[in-house]
Protein backbone atom coordinates (compact mmCIF):
# COMPACT_ATOMS: atom_id res chain seq x y z
CA UNK A 1 0.00 0.00 0.00
CA UNK A 2 1.39 3.39 -0.98
CA UNK A 3 -0.06 6.70 0.17
CA UNK A 4 1.02 9.90 -1.54
CA UNK A 5 0.47 12.90 0.70
CA UNK A 6 1.30 12.82 4.42
CA UNK A 7 -1.20 15.34 5.76
CA UNK A 8 -4.26 14.66 7.90
CA UNK A 9 -5.85 12.45 5.27
CA UNK A 10 -2.81 10.40 4.27
CA UNK A 11 -1.66 10.07 7.87
CA UNK A 12 -5.09 8.86 9.03
CA UNK A 13 -5.25 6.41 6.14
CA UNK A 14 -1.88 4.88 7.02
CA UNK A 15 -2.85 4.45 10.66
CA UNK A 16 -6.25 3.06 9.67
CA UNK A 17 -4.68 0.39 7.44
CA UNK A 18 -2.87 -0.97 10.48
CA UNK A 19 -5.86 -0.59 12.78
CA UNK A 20 -7.81 -2.68 10.27
CA UNK A 21 -5.24 -5.45 10.59
CA UNK A 22 -3.43 -5.05 7.29
CA UNK A 23 0.05 -6.56 7.71
CA UNK A 24 1.74 -5.86 4.35
CA UNK A 25 4.02 -2.91 3.67
CA UNK A 26 2.60 0.62 4.09
CA UNK A 27 4.56 3.59 2.74
CA UNK A 28 3.54 7.18 3.35
CA UNK A 29 5.17 9.76 1.05
CA UNK A 30 5.20 13.43 2.10
CA UNK A 31 6.92 16.48 0.67
CA UNK A 32 7.25 18.21 4.03
CA UNK A 33 10.02 17.44 6.53
CA UNK A 34 7.49 16.83 9.35
CA UNK A 35 5.35 14.05 10.73
CA UNK A 36 1.72 14.29 9.54
CA UNK A 37 0.24 17.22 11.45
CA UNK A 38 -2.98 19.13 12.01
CA UNK A 39 -3.33 22.18 9.81
CA UNK A 40 -6.35 23.89 11.45
CA UNK A 41 -4.24 25.41 14.29
CA UNK A 42 -1.93 27.14 11.81
CA UNK A 43 -4.25 30.11 11.40
CA UNK A 44 -5.39 29.98 15.04
CA UNK A 45 -3.43 28.97 18.16
CA UNK A 46 -0.10 28.36 16.45
CA UNK A 47 -0.20 31.90 15.18
CA UNK A 48 -0.93 33.54 18.48
CA UNK A 49 1.52 31.54 20.57
CA UNK A 50 5.04 32.75 21.33
CA UNK A 51 6.66 29.55 20.20
CA UNK A 52 4.50 27.89 17.58
CA UNK A 53 4.66 24.11 17.79
CA UNK A 54 3.57 21.55 15.31
CA UNK A 55 0.70 19.33 16.40
CA UNK A 56 1.56 15.95 14.92
CA UNK A 57 -1.19 13.35 14.56
CA UNK A 58 1.24 10.54 15.26
CA UNK A 59 4.79 10.03 16.48
CA UNK A 60 7.96 8.44 15.15
CA UNK A 61 7.59 5.76 17.81
CA UNK A 62 4.04 4.93 16.77
CA UNK A 63 4.97 4.81 13.08
CA UNK A 64 7.87 2.48 13.92
CA UNK A 65 5.69 0.32 16.13
CA UNK A 66 3.12 0.02 13.35
CA UNK A 67 5.78 -0.52 10.67
CA UNK A 68 4.60 2.44 8.65
CA UNK A 69 7.40 3.70 6.46
CA UNK A 70 7.26 7.49 6.27
CA UNK A 71 9.34 9.12 3.53
CA UNK A 72 9.81 12.82 4.20
CA UNK A 73 10.72 15.77 1.98
CA UNK A 74 10.14 13.75 -1.13
CA UNK A 75 7.52 14.11 -3.85
CA UNK A 76 5.84 11.57 -6.05
CA UNK A 77 7.04 12.50 -9.52
CA UNK A 78 5.02 10.09 -11.60
CA UNK A 79 2.79 7.03 -11.62
CA UNK A 80 3.18 4.10 -13.99
CA UNK A 81 -0.26 2.56 -13.61
CA UNK A 82 0.49 -0.40 -15.86
CA UNK A 83 3.53 -1.41 -13.83
CA UNK A 84 1.90 -0.29 -10.53
CA UNK A 85 4.89 1.86 -9.64
CA UNK A 86 5.21 5.36 -8.16
CA UNK A 87 8.39 7.22 -9.11
CA UNK A 88 9.77 9.60 -6.48
CA UNK A 89 11.57 12.91 -6.85
CA UNK A 90 14.74 11.40 -5.35
CA UNK A 91 14.90 8.79 -8.09
CA UNK A 92 13.57 5.88 -6.02
CA UNK A 93 10.43 3.99 -6.94
CA UNK A 94 7.73 2.21 -4.96
CA UNK A 95 5.55 -0.62 -6.22
CA UNK A 96 1.98 -0.77 -5.07
CA UNK A 97 -1.03 -3.03 -5.08
CA UNK A 98 -3.30 -0.15 -4.09
CA UNK A 99 -2.35 3.52 -4.22
CA UNK A 100 -4.01 6.37 -2.34
CA UNK A 101 -3.60 9.93 -3.54
CA UNK A 102 -4.06 12.30 -0.62
CA UNK A 103 -2.29 15.21 -2.24
CA UNK A 104 -4.47 17.88 -0.66
CA UNK A 105 -4.92 21.38 -1.94
CA UNK A 106 -2.72 24.39 -2.35
CA UNK A 107 -3.53 28.09 -1.94
CA UNK A 108 -5.06 29.69 -5.01
CA UNK A 109 -2.46 32.07 -6.41
CA UNK A 110 -3.26 35.70 -7.01
CA UNK A 111 -2.86 36.10 -10.79
CA UNK A 112 -0.91 39.29 -10.57
CA UNK A 113 2.66 40.40 -11.13
CA UNK A 114 4.66 42.13 -8.40
CA UNK A 115 4.27 39.54 -5.65
CA UNK A 116 7.53 39.22 -3.73
CA UNK A 117 8.62 37.99 -0.35
CA UNK A 118 6.17 40.21 1.52
CA UNK A 119 3.21 38.54 -0.19
CA UNK A 120 2.64 35.12 1.32
CA UNK A 121 0.18 32.26 1.43
CA UNK A 122 -0.70 29.95 4.31
CA UNK A 123 -0.78 26.20 3.93
CA UNK A 124 2.15 24.66 5.78
CA UNK A 125 3.80 24.97 9.17
CA UNK A 126 6.72 26.72 7.43
CA UNK A 127 4.27 29.26 5.95
CA UNK A 128 2.80 29.79 9.42
CA UNK A 129 6.22 30.44 10.95
CA UNK A 130 7.06 32.94 8.22
CA UNK A 131 3.82 34.83 8.85
CA UNK A 132 4.22 34.61 12.63
CA UNK A 133 7.58 36.38 12.38
CA UNK A 134 5.77 39.48 11.10
CA UNK A 135 3.02 39.58 13.71
CA UNK A 136 3.73 41.94 16.58
CA UNK A 137 2.35 45.10 18.12
CA UNK A 138 2.23 47.80 15.50
CA UNK A 139 3.05 45.67 12.46
CA UNK A 140 0.72 46.27 9.51
CA UNK A 141 -0.92 43.25 7.93
CA UNK A 142 -3.02 43.37 4.76
CA UNK A 143 -5.08 40.24 4.25
CA UNK A 144 -6.39 39.65 0.76
CA UNK A 145 -9.53 37.53 0.99
CA UNK A 146 -12.26 37.52 3.65
CA UNK A 147 -12.61 33.75 3.89
CA UNK A 148 -11.88 31.53 6.86
CA UNK A 149 -8.10 31.49 6.58
CA UNK A 150 -7.91 35.25 6.22
CA UNK A 151 -10.32 35.95 9.05
CA UNK A 152 -8.81 33.47 11.50
CA UNK A 153 -5.44 34.94 10.72
CA UNK A 154 -6.83 38.45 11.23
CA UNK A 155 -8.05 37.43 14.70
CA UNK A 156 -4.66 35.92 15.60
CA UNK A 157 -2.82 39.00 14.29
CA UNK A 158 -5.03 41.29 16.37
CA UNK A 159 -4.34 39.20 19.44
CA UNK A 160 -0.68 39.97 18.92
CA UNK A 161 -1.39 43.68 18.47
CA UNK A 162 -0.87 43.98 14.73
CA UNK A 163 -2.93 46.44 12.73
CA UNK A 164 -5.04 44.45 10.27
CA UNK A 165 -6.91 45.26 7.08
CA UNK A 166 -8.97 42.58 5.33
CA UNK A 167 -9.72 43.18 1.66
CA UNK A 168 -12.57 41.18 0.12
CA UNK A 169 -13.63 41.47 -3.52
CA UNK A 170 -17.12 40.06 -2.87
CA UNK A 171 -19.81 42.31 -1.37
CA UNK A 172 -19.34 40.68 2.04
CA UNK A 173 -16.97 38.36 3.90
CA UNK A 174 -17.56 34.58 3.97
CA UNK A 175 -19.63 34.61 0.78
CA UNK A 176 -19.01 30.95 0.14
CA UNK A 177 -21.13 28.67 2.28
CA UNK A 178 -21.90 30.98 5.21
CA UNK A 179 -25.34 32.64 5.56
CA UNK A 180 -25.39 36.43 5.60
CA UNK A 181 -26.71 36.62 9.20
CA UNK A 182 -23.73 34.65 10.49
CA UNK A 183 -21.19 36.46 8.33
CA UNK A 184 -22.61 39.68 9.83
CA UNK A 185 -21.84 38.51 13.37
CA UNK A 186 -18.29 37.61 12.35
CA UNK A 187 -17.89 40.94 10.57
CA UNK A 188 -19.04 42.87 13.65
CA UNK A 189 -16.73 40.88 15.93
CA UNK A 190 -13.75 41.76 13.76
CA UNK A 191 -14.65 45.42 13.62
CA UNK A 192 -15.14 45.50 17.39
CA UNK A 193 -11.62 44.07 17.73
CA UNK A 194 -10.24 46.79 15.48
CA UNK A 195 -9.90 44.96 12.16
CA UNK A 196 -10.63 47.11 9.15
CA UNK A 197 -12.75 45.18 6.64
CA UNK A 198 -12.99 46.49 3.09
CA UNK A 199 -15.67 44.42 1.34
CA UNK A 200 -16.64 44.82 -2.29
CA UNK A 201 -13.10 45.95 -3.04
CA UNK A 202 -11.18 44.34 -5.84
CA UNK A 203 -7.47 44.92 -6.00
CA UNK A 204 -5.80 46.18 -9.13
CA UNK A 205 -2.13 45.92 -8.23
CA UNK A 206 0.35 44.76 -5.62
CA UNK A 207 3.81 46.28 -5.39
CA UNK A 208 6.19 44.51 -3.08
CA UNK A 209 9.65 45.80 -2.26
CA UNK A 210 12.11 45.02 0.48
CA UNK A 211 10.59 47.56 2.86
CA UNK A 212 6.83 47.19 2.47
CA UNK A 213 3.97 46.01 0.30
CA UNK A 214 1.48 48.35 -1.36
CA UNK A 215 -1.93 46.96 -2.31
CA UNK A 216 -3.87 49.14 -4.74
CA UNK A 217 -7.65 48.87 -4.50
CA UNK A 218 -10.18 49.20 -7.33
CA UNK A 219 -11.19 52.62 -6.00
CA UNK A 220 -7.61 53.84 -6.38
CA UNK A 221 -6.67 53.83 -2.68
CA UNK A 222 -3.49 52.16 -1.50
CA UNK A 223 -3.11 49.95 1.57
CA UNK A 224 0.48 49.91 2.75
CA UNK A 225 1.56 47.02 4.94
CA UNK A 226 4.57 45.12 6.24
CA UNK A 227 3.08 41.85 5.07
CA UNK A 228 0.28 40.80 2.79
CA UNK A 229 -1.28 37.40 3.31
CA UNK A 230 -3.28 36.11 0.40
CA UNK A 231 -6.15 33.82 1.31
CA UNK A 232 -8.37 33.58 -1.74
CA UNK A 233 -9.21 29.90 -1.63
CA UNK A 234 -7.50 26.67 -2.48
CA UNK A 235 -7.13 24.50 -5.54
CA UNK A 236 -6.80 20.72 -5.51
CA UNK A 237 -3.38 19.23 -6.22
CA UNK A 238 -4.10 17.09 -9.28
CA UNK A 239 -0.99 17.28 -11.48
CA UNK A 240 0.28 13.83 -10.57
CA UNK A 241 -3.14 12.27 -11.18
CA UNK A 242 -3.70 14.17 -14.42
CA UNK A 243 -0.30 13.19 -15.80
CA UNK A 244 -1.13 9.59 -14.97
CA UNK A 245 -4.25 9.91 -17.10
CA UNK A 246 -6.78 9.74 -14.25
CA UNK A 247 -10.07 11.58 -14.70
CA UNK A 248 -10.08 15.09 -13.23
CA UNK A 249 -13.31 16.96 -12.49
CA UNK A 250 -12.81 19.81 -10.03
CA UNK A 251 -10.28 17.55 -8.29
CA UNK A 252 -9.36 13.94 -8.83
CA UNK A 253 -12.71 12.37 -9.69
CA UNK A 254 -13.63 9.40 -7.50
CA UNK A 255 -16.73 7.28 -7.06
CA UNK A 256 -18.66 6.81 -3.83
CA UNK A 257 -15.97 4.38 -2.64
CA UNK A 258 -13.24 6.96 -3.34
CA UNK A 259 -11.90 4.99 -6.29
CA UNK A 260 -10.48 6.95 -9.22
CA UNK A 261 -10.92 5.96 -12.86
CA UNK A 262 -8.24 3.32 -12.12
CA UNK A 263 -9.64 0.67 -9.73
CA UNK A 264 -6.27 0.30 -7.98
CA UNK A 265 -5.91 4.02 -7.31
CA UNK A 266 -7.94 5.85 -4.68
CA UNK A 267 -8.08 9.54 -3.82
CA UNK A 268 -9.33 11.22 -0.65
CA UNK A 269 -9.50 14.55 1.12
CA UNK A 270 -9.09 18.03 -0.35
CA UNK A 271 -7.74 16.74 -3.66
CA UNK A 272 -10.76 14.72 -4.76
CA UNK A 273 -14.29 15.38 -5.95
CA UNK A 274 -16.84 12.76 -4.99
CA UNK A 275 -20.59 12.13 -5.13
CA UNK A 276 -22.23 13.28 -1.91
CA UNK A 277 -24.94 10.72 -1.18
CA UNK A 278 -26.91 12.92 1.19
CA UNK A 279 -27.64 15.30 -1.71
CA UNK A 280 -28.46 12.66 -4.29
CA UNK A 281 -24.91 12.22 -5.50
CA UNK A 282 -24.12 15.88 -6.18
CA UNK A 283 -20.39 16.01 -6.99
CA UNK A 284 -18.49 18.11 -4.48
CA UNK A 285 -14.99 18.73 -3.28
CA UNK A 286 -14.54 19.60 0.38
CA UNK A 287 -11.64 21.45 1.94
CA UNK A 288 -12.25 20.44 5.51
CA UNK A 289 -10.34 18.76 8.28
CA UNK A 290 -12.99 16.28 9.30
CA UNK A 291 -13.60 15.27 5.70
CA UNK A 292 -9.88 14.61 5.29
CA UNK A 293 -9.96 12.41 8.38
CA UNK A 294 -13.09 10.50 7.46
CA UNK A 295 -12.13 9.99 3.84
CA UNK A 296 -8.62 8.87 4.81
CA UNK A 297 -10.14 6.18 7.01
CA UNK A 298 -12.77 5.24 4.41
CA UNK A 299 -10.14 4.98 1.66
CA UNK A 300 -8.13 2.64 3.89
CA UNK A 301 -11.16 0.37 4.39
CA UNK A 302 -11.89 0.32 0.67
CA UNK A 303 -8.24 -0.30 -0.29
CA UNK A 304 -8.68 -3.46 1.75
CA UNK A 305 -11.84 -4.32 -0.17
CA UNK A 306 -14.63 -3.13 2.13
CA UNK A 307 -16.64 -1.68 -0.76
CA UNK A 308 -18.14 0.93 1.56
CA UNK A 309 -19.80 4.02 0.12
CA UNK A 310 -19.16 7.49 1.54
CA UNK A 311 -22.14 8.53 3.62
CA UNK A 312 -20.97 11.36 5.88
CA UNK A 313 -22.50 14.82 6.08
CA UNK A 314 -20.02 17.67 5.53
CA UNK A 315 -19.05 19.44 8.75
CA UNK A 316 -16.92 22.47 9.27
CA UNK A 317 -15.92 24.84 12.05
CA UNK A 318 -14.05 28.08 12.60
CA UNK A 319 -12.89 29.91 15.74
CA UNK A 320 -12.37 33.65 15.82
CA UNK A 321 -11.95 35.55 19.08
CA UNK A 322 -14.35 33.88 21.53
CA UNK A 323 -16.78 32.91 18.79
CA UNK A 324 -17.15 29.50 17.30
CA UNK A 325 -18.99 28.82 14.10
CA UNK A 326 -20.08 25.36 13.00
CA UNK A 327 -21.81 24.28 9.83
CA UNK A 328 -23.24 20.86 9.04
CA UNK A 329 -24.29 20.19 5.47
CA UNK A 330 -24.07 22.59 2.56
CA UNK A 331 -26.38 25.55 3.09
CA UNK A 332 -26.76 26.29 -0.63
CA UNK A 333 -28.99 23.20 -0.78
CA UNK A 334 -31.58 25.05 1.31
CA UNK A 335 -34.51 27.18 0.13
CA UNK A 336 -35.90 28.30 3.48
CA UNK A 337 -34.42 29.13 6.86
CA UNK A 338 -35.69 28.53 10.41
CA UNK A 339 -33.84 30.19 13.26
CA UNK A 340 -33.36 28.77 16.76
CA UNK A 341 -31.97 31.07 19.46
CA UNK A 342 -29.92 29.34 22.15
CA UNK A 343 -29.24 32.27 24.49
CA UNK A 344 -25.96 34.16 25.05
CA UNK A 345 -26.35 35.46 21.48
CA UNK A 346 -25.88 31.98 20.07
CA UNK A 347 -28.20 30.82 17.32
CA UNK A 348 -28.60 28.18 14.65
CA UNK A 349 -30.08 28.57 11.19
CA UNK A 350 -31.70 25.42 9.85
CA UNK A 351 -31.73 25.26 6.08
CA UNK A 352 -34.69 23.40 4.63
CA UNK A 353 -35.18 22.13 1.09
CA UNK A 354 -38.41 22.81 -0.79
CA UNK A 355 -39.86 19.50 0.35
CA UNK A 356 -39.14 20.33 3.99
CA UNK A 357 -36.08 18.13 4.33
CA UNK A 358 -33.38 19.48 6.64
CA UNK A 359 -30.30 19.91 4.42
CA UNK A 360 -27.94 22.06 6.48
CA UNK A 361 -27.51 23.87 9.78
CA UNK A 362 -25.27 26.87 10.45
CA UNK A 363 -24.60 28.06 13.96
CA UNK A 364 -22.53 30.67 15.75
CA UNK A 365 -22.06 31.56 19.38
CA UNK A 366 -19.57 32.03 22.18
CA UNK A 367 -17.42 29.01 23.01
CA UNK A 368 -19.03 25.73 22.08
CA UNK A 369 -22.63 26.82 22.61
CA UNK A 370 -23.84 25.59 19.22
CA UNK A 371 -21.83 22.38 19.04
CA UNK A 372 -24.32 19.92 20.45
CA UNK A 373 -27.27 21.07 18.37
CA UNK A 374 -25.18 21.25 15.21
CA UNK A 375 -24.08 17.68 15.83
CA UNK A 376 -27.69 16.58 16.27
CA UNK A 377 -28.65 18.52 13.15
CA UNK A 378 -25.90 16.69 11.28
CA UNK A 379 -27.51 13.39 12.28
CA UNK A 380 -30.95 14.64 11.25
CA UNK A 381 -29.49 15.69 7.88
CA UNK A 382 -27.92 12.26 7.50
CA UNK A 383 -31.29 10.65 8.21
CA UNK A 384 -32.89 12.88 5.57
CA UNK A 385 -35.36 13.98 8.24
CA UNK A 386 -38.14 16.47 7.66
CA UNK A 387 -38.57 17.96 11.14
CA UNK A 388 -41.44 20.37 11.73
CA UNK A 389 -40.16 23.95 11.29
CA UNK A 390 -41.92 24.99 14.52
CA UNK A 391 -40.00 22.33 16.43
CA UNK A 392 -36.68 23.43 14.94
CA UNK A 393 -37.42 27.04 15.80
CA UNK A 394 -38.35 26.34 19.40
CA UNK A 395 -35.38 26.02 21.79
CA UNK A 396 -37.64 24.11 24.20
CA UNK A 397 -37.95 21.20 21.79
CA UNK A 398 -34.86 19.03 22.08
CA UNK A 399 -33.29 18.09 18.79
CA UNK A 400 -32.51 14.69 20.28
CA UNK A 401 -36.23 14.10 20.57
CA UNK A 402 -36.63 14.91 16.87
CA UNK A 403 -33.88 12.44 16.04
CA UNK A 404 -35.72 9.67 17.87
CA UNK A 405 -38.98 10.52 16.07
Amino acid sequence: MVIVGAGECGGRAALALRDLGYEGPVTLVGDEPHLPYERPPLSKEAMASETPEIRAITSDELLAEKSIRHLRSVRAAGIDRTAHVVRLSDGASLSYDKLLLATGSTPRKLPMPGLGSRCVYLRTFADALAIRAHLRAGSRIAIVGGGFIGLELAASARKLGASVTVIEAQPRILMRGVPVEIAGIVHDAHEAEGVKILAGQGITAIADDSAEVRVTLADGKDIVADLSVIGIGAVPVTTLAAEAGLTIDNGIAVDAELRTSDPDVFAAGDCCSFPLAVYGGRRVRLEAWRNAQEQGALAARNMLGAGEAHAAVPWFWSDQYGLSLQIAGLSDEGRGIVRRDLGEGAFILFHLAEDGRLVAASGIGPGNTVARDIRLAEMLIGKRAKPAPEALGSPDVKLKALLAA
Partner: protein
Amino acid sequence: MNDWVEACAAEEIDEEDVMRFDHGGRTFAIYRSPDDEFFATDGLCTHEKIHLADGLVMDDIIECPKHNGRFNYKTGAAKGAPACVNLKTYPVKVDAGKVLVQIG
Protein backbone atom coordinates in the same frame (compact mmCIF):
# COMPACT_ATOMS: atom_id res chain seq x y z
CA MET B 1 -9.06 8.31 49.75
CA ASN B 2 -12.62 8.75 50.91
CA ASP B 3 -13.13 12.20 49.51
CA TRP B 4 -16.63 12.07 48.10
CA VAL B 5 -17.71 15.45 46.79
CA GLU B 6 -21.25 16.51 46.01
CA ALA B 7 -21.44 17.44 42.34
CA CYS B 8 -25.11 18.19 41.77
CA ALA B 9 -28.61 16.92 42.34
CA ALA B 10 -29.45 13.84 40.30
CA GLU B 11 -32.47 15.59 38.81
CA GLU B 12 -30.26 18.33 37.35
CA ILE B 13 -28.99 16.01 34.63
CA ASP B 14 -31.30 14.51 32.03
CA GLU B 15 -30.94 10.91 31.02
CA GLU B 16 -28.33 10.50 28.27
CA ASP B 17 -26.82 13.86 29.08
CA VAL B 18 -23.80 15.46 30.70
CA MET B 19 -23.02 18.35 33.02
CA ARG B 20 -19.87 20.23 33.89
CA PHE B 21 -18.68 20.21 37.51
CA ASP B 22 -15.79 22.35 38.74
CA HIS B 23 -14.13 21.64 42.06
CA GLY B 24 -10.84 22.67 43.65
CA GLY B 25 -9.44 24.16 40.46
CA ARG B 26 -10.28 21.04 38.48
CA THR B 27 -13.06 20.39 36.03
CA PHE B 28 -15.09 17.22 35.63
CA ALA B 29 -17.93 15.94 33.49
CA ILE B 30 -20.83 14.13 35.17
CA TYR B 31 -22.95 11.85 33.01
CA ARG B 32 -26.34 10.23 33.35
CA SER B 33 -26.64 7.22 31.06
CA PRO B 34 -29.79 6.23 29.13
CA ASP B 35 -30.32 3.46 31.72
CA ASP B 36 -30.17 5.99 34.54
CA GLU B 37 -26.71 5.36 35.95
CA PHE B 38 -24.26 8.11 36.82
CA PHE B 39 -20.61 8.39 35.78
CA ALA B 40 -17.80 10.94 36.02
CA THR B 41 -14.68 11.68 33.98
CA ASP B 42 -12.13 14.43 33.66
CA GLY B 43 -13.87 17.43 32.16
CA LEU B 44 -11.50 18.19 29.32
CA CYS B 45 -10.98 16.30 26.09
CA THR B 46 -7.54 14.70 25.94
CA HIS B 47 -7.03 16.02 22.42
CA GLU B 48 -7.30 19.76 22.87
CA LYS B 49 -8.56 20.56 26.38
CA ILE B 50 -12.12 21.34 25.35
CA HIS B 51 -14.94 21.04 27.92
CA LEU B 52 -16.67 17.76 27.14
CA ALA B 53 -19.83 18.88 28.90
CA ASP B 54 -20.67 20.95 25.80
CA GLY B 55 -20.61 17.74 23.79
CA LEU B 56 -23.24 15.22 22.88
CA VAL B 57 -23.98 12.01 24.81
CA MET B 58 -25.25 9.10 22.72
CA ASP B 59 -25.61 5.79 24.56
CA ASP B 60 -22.22 5.16 26.25
CA ILE B 61 -20.33 7.74 24.22
CA ILE B 62 -19.46 11.37 24.89
CA GLU B 63 -18.37 13.24 21.81
CA CYS B 64 -16.14 16.30 22.08
CA PRO B 65 -17.99 19.41 20.86
CA LYS B 66 -15.00 20.65 18.92
CA HIS B 67 -13.41 17.92 16.92
CA ASN B 68 -15.66 14.92 17.53
CA GLY B 69 -13.13 12.93 19.52
CA ARG B 70 -15.18 10.15 21.15
CA PHE B 71 -14.88 8.46 24.51
CA ASN B 72 -16.80 5.78 26.35
CA TYR B 73 -17.64 7.79 29.48
CA LYS B 74 -18.18 4.62 31.51
CA THR B 75 -14.62 3.36 30.97
CA GLY B 76 -12.84 6.47 29.71
CA ALA B 77 -11.66 4.63 26.58
CA ALA B 78 -10.86 6.84 23.57
CA LYS B 79 -13.03 5.67 20.69
CA GLY B 80 -12.11 7.73 17.68
CA ALA B 81 -9.65 10.14 16.08
CA PRO B 82 -8.48 12.69 16.90
CA ALA B 83 -8.75 11.45 20.50
CA CYS B 84 -6.17 8.77 21.22
CA VAL B 85 -5.52 9.20 24.96
CA ASN B 86 -8.09 7.73 27.35
CA LEU B 87 -10.08 9.88 29.76
CA LYS B 88 -9.65 9.41 33.48
CA THR B 89 -12.82 8.21 35.20
CA TYR B 90 -13.97 8.63 38.83
CA PRO B 91 -16.31 6.60 41.06
CA VAL B 92 -19.80 8.03 41.42
CA LYS B 93 -22.66 7.26 43.79
CA VAL B 94 -26.09 8.72 44.32
CA ASP B 95 -27.14 9.38 47.88
CA ALA B 96 -30.44 11.00 48.83
CA GLY B 97 -30.85 12.48 45.36
CA LYS B 98 -27.33 13.90 45.33
CA VAL B 99 -24.63 12.85 42.88
CA LEU B 100 -21.32 12.29 44.71
CA VAL B 101 -17.97 11.92 42.98
CA GLN B 102 -14.82 10.49 44.51
CA ILE B 103 -12.29 12.77 42.93
CA GLY B 104 -9.24 11.31 44.64
